[in-house]
């Protein structure tokens, strides 16, 4: 059999190249500015992590935003208390998210199917509500947790002379804003992608797929599936925590709204849109949604009038009226429609779309044939 071009090593190389060169190849699309690129990388990590749980085991968690939020809070506290260096912040973000994931997972994984979804949703909503109300000393409630001049920053204050104004996050002196921030996130994204690739190919990943297709049978063979599920849940929670801490790294504030269930819904959308259970899908979905969010929501009526100025006046006004429903503040409408279309016509997401498209031109077999739509839920 002929060796496929896209074996794992090449896939990783292509992926890394694509990510690192994003500032170049995305500039014709108007997306090559650091803020957006950072978001691509961060939400890519979030979605890749979510996919390890949902894609491999079929357990649909509606509470992943809680881990994202905890990651952010932990990172900001690390900035406030210890140092503006990002390494400890990321470390704490991942650890705390992992701990919370362990706690929530340990309880929620006693059930499966929709009950699991509701349990995770309940825990995430509890965290969100608590962050808004009782935990205000830790989370600063509605205002959100921010850096202030008077933060102790014990480690920094020992080594670094105090400068005027708010210090910015740095990696051993390299400021984490703009492109350096993006490359920091991008490298972590590539690491995460590599981990996810290894998990997909490992016996552990195979075990998780076994759970997805028939958990009962796995249990009958005398295997205790719980530890496997729990590790998958914790790993995916840690990915979310990493994403959360990176959000804080690129913009050092944390708010409770990151933990709301709509944020959990968003990552589900990204994963589904890209393709559940595929390696590259979640990243695609995350990029696409964030791209649309930024590009579509920046359109306004004047811009539309320019775009459609070639039409006759009467027609132009009507067209602009209609189109303006879908852009600017109404870009969620586009998102909802896009989402429905994908679920209805392309249950396997964009990746499946590519494969079908490739199939038309006679390119080989489906690479990720496990993403069949029928057995997505763990029931």
């Amino acid at each position, binding site marked *: 059999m002929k060796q496929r071009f896209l074996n794992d090593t090449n896939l990783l190389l292509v992926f890394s190249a694509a990510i690192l060169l994003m500032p170049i190849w995305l500039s014709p699309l108007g997306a090559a500015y650091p803020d957006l690129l950072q978001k691509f990388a961060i939400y890519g990590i979030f979605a890749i992590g979510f996919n390890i749980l949902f894609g491999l085991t079929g357990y649909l968690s509606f509470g992943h935003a809680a881990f994202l939020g905890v990651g952010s809070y932990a990172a900001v506290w690390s900035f406030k208390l210890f140092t503006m260096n990002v390494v400890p912040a990321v470390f704490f973000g991942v650890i705390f998210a992992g701990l919370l994931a362990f706690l929530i997972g340990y309880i929620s994984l006693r059930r499966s199917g*929709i009950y699991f979804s509701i349990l995770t949703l309940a825990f995430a909503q509890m965290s969100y509500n608590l962050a808004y109300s009782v*935990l205000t000393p830790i989370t600063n409630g509605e205002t959100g947790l921010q850096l202030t001049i008077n933060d102790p920053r014990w480690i920094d204050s020992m080594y670094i002379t105090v400068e005027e104004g708010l210090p910015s996050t740095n990696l051993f002196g390299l400021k984490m804003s703009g492109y350096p921030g993006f490359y920091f996130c991008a490298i972590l994204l590539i690491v995460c992608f590599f981990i996810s690739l290894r998990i997909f190919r490992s016996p552990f990943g195979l075990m998780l797929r076994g759970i997805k297709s028939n958990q009962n049978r796995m249990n009958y063979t005398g295997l205790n599936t719980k530890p496997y599920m729990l590790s998958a849940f914790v790993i995916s929670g840690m990915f979310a925590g990493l994403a959360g801490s990176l959000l804080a790294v690129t913009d050092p504030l944390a708010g409770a709204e990151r933990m709301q269930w709509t944020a959990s819904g968003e990552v589900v959308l990204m994963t*589904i849109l890209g393709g559940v259970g595929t390696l590259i899908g979640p990243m695609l979905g995350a990029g696409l949604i964030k791209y649309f969010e930024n590009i579509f929501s920046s359109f306004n009526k004047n811009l539309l009038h320019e775009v459609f100025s070639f039409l006759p006046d009467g027609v132009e006004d009507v067209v602009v009226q209609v189109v303006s429903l879908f852009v600017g503040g109404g870009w969620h409408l586009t998102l*909802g429609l896009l989402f429905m279309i994908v679920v209805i016509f392309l249950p396997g997401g964009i990746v499946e779309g590519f494969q079908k498209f490739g199939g038309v031109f006679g390119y080989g077999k489906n690479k990720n044939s496990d993403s069949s739509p029928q057995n997505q839920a763990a029931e």
Partner: protein
Amino acid sequence: MDSILIQILNGLDKGAAYALIALGLTLVFGTLGIVNFAHGAIFMLGAFCAVTFRKLLTLSVKVKDESVTMFAAYKDEPYLKIWFGDTGEAIIDYAVPLSILIAIPFMVLVGYAMERGLIRHFYKRAHADQILVTFGLAIVVQELIKASFGANPIPQAAPDIVAGSANVGLWFGLGESLVYPWWRLIYLCFSGVMIFAVFSFLQFTTYGMVVRAGMRDRETVGLLGINIQRRFTIVFAIAAVVAGTAGVMYTPILPPDYHMGMDFLVLSFVVVVVGGMGSLGGAVTAGFLLGIVQSFASMNEVKSIIPGIDQIIIYLVAVVILLTLPRGLMGRAGVMDD
């Protein structure tokens, strides 16, 4: 004592909203096997029926007021008032209850269109797919409403005659300090009537009997030559009517905005699962139960003992119930078992 009774009333009130949405959700799940995340959007559409109806009724024309000589000489006069005088004004006053009349046919239409147009294609798909597509639909509906009505809540007044508070305490000889807004009482009675109507429809009519049979064993009912699919579609429309009218009646209590559906949906879903998937009685019981529990948790006395309990109590109860009772309060065996 009074404060406890007030809390019970508050709880019943809140619970009634949860129960009505959850009833529709579980009805749809029991018949069609669909997890409908767009049900909250239907509730919201109902509320906006009331908003639209009032807007239609108060279509105005600028009329010059002869008695005023200064600036504000022109004022808006609704056509209804010009045409019918006091009767017209009374109709405007009763806009909220009257809008039920247009909400019912509209909701039947919406329910029917939704079921035939979208839901029908998702019977055989995984629950995750159903959740996702209806979630997408909910976003679309929500955004359309936002585009046409704006993002701010639009307050709706109850009819003047029931604007004040009822002296509930006096009715039961409990002293004068126990008062409660009239409209909330009316809403409570309305919910009771709706729940009773749905249950009697299913329990005491032949049509309902067939539907119940279909919920138990769809295939056999189909083999008997009954078009069970058609009936289920109608049940979907009924569920939409229940949620929609609940939305209409809720407008004076909570000014409707475009995301009210989602806010209620998450809680209603918790309610359905706590009550037991596919169990109508369970949904209603759990709705009232969680409503009451929540309103007790938001009493100051309770909050001072356990701070923040009011924020999480519903979810806490849900977690405990799901972990101790695998099928929720009243779930039937064989429905969504793990």
